[in-house]
């Protein structure tokens, strides 16, 4: 059962929700796909770490063979190639590894070489398997790392898998939710929060994913994110209070489920709710 946790911006509580649901699930897998800024490992502090390098293919030019036709320069959508006077220059950090330049080169002056863009880290925290993707600073796309993380976790497909998504609704988020059985959208109780919620709400609809909303930082009284859900008949899975006990534990990188009975109950209930939703989806849609 793959559950992706997403939000329209950073800092809404994706990591809080996904880390604690994984901890509440027991014998689960937590995958941190927020590869530009993975921070789930700060909470889990996984042991027995195994690391693997992630590489992509980028072009390498043989200027002896290059005839200066500039077909590759014209082809590249990302402008990663330039022809200066008598030689072709490849900008590794702009290249998106599409391989098109190699296809259009009439004299085979371009060949593939491996370039490391980051790594995946695998470890264990109590009974949770922790997978972390780490993208090197300045790399244009984290998608190859996310692909590898999801591939590596396939062995545990029978377990509950919590996927901590990158913020927003861009390509990396799409890659993250592509195979998810269910999406949890985390929302803040502000007008700004509604705007961000709407972004991911549109995305999950586009991908036809079953989903529900968790209202984080909830206070008594007005909650624009809750109103947004009620107006549209969106399933509200639960509320997490704006609470100093939770804030303190979380800021100290503690997993609240492992420290507080109250929060263990809250996240266990939330998980049960989500499991029920997923089972309901699989029986009605298969």
């Amino acid at each position: 059962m793959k559950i992706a946790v997403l939000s329209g911006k950073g800092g809404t509580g994706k990591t809080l929700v996904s880390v604690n649901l994984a901890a509440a699930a027991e014998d689960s897998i937590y995958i941190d796909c927020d590869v530009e800024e993975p921070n789930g490992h700060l909470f889990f502090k996984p042991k027995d770490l195994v690391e693997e390098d992630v590489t992509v293919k980028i072009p390498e030019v043989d200027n002896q063979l290059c005839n200066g036709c500039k077909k590759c320069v014209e082809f590249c959508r990302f402008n990663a190639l330039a022809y200066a006077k008598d030689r072709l220059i490849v900008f590794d950090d702009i290249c998106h590894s599409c391989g098109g330049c190699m296809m259009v080169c009439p004299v085979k002056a371009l060949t593939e070489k491996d370039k490391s863009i980051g790594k995946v880290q695998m470890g264990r925290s109590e009974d949770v398997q922790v997978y972390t993707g780490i993208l090197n600073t300045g790399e244009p796309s984290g998608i190859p790392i996310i692909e590898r993380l999801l591939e590596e976790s396939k062995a545990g497909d029978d377990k509950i898998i919590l996927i901590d998504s990158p913020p927003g609704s861009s390509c990396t988020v799409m890659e993250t939710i592509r195979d998810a059985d269910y999406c949890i959208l985390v929302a803040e109780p502000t007008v700004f929060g509604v705007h961000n919620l709407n972004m991911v709400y549109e995305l999950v609809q586009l991908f036809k994913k079953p989903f529900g909303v968790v209202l984080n930082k909830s206070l008594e009284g007005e909650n624009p994110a809750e109103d947004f859900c009620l107006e549209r008949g969106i399933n509200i899975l639960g509320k997490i209070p704006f609470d100093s006990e939770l804030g303190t534990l979380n800021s100290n990188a503690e997993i609240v489920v492992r420290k507080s009975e109250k929060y263990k109950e809250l996240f266990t209930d939330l998980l049960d709710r989500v499991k029920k939703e997923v089972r309901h989806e699989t029986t009605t849609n298969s």
Partner: protein
Amino acid sequence: MKIAMPVGKKDIESNVGTSFGRSPYFLVYDTESKESEFIENKAAMSSGGAGVKAAQTVIDSDSTVLLTPQCGENAANTLKSASVEIYKTTLKSIRENIDAYMAGELQPLSEIHDGFHDHGGH
């Protein structure tokens, strides 16, 4: 010799553009014939790598000198590979800067910025 400059309008009486890679046009001024030509900067609307593409346009125009208020690292490296010299514009108008360059009053551009690259998000 040909001099290239990023410009906002196809008008020699207008001002120098404020950026390099994202300027809508380049002026290519021929110091011998005193003729000026405006070429479109196809990089202006690029989602990324605008500096590299703009540098390619300057190189392809056979300019050997670029007068610009600023320039990113990738663009500067591309231009250097093609032996295009980069000078910093200090005055507002296109004409004043050309005159200043001809009089040897412009300095080579020393601050090359890291580029205004879009991080993630695509």
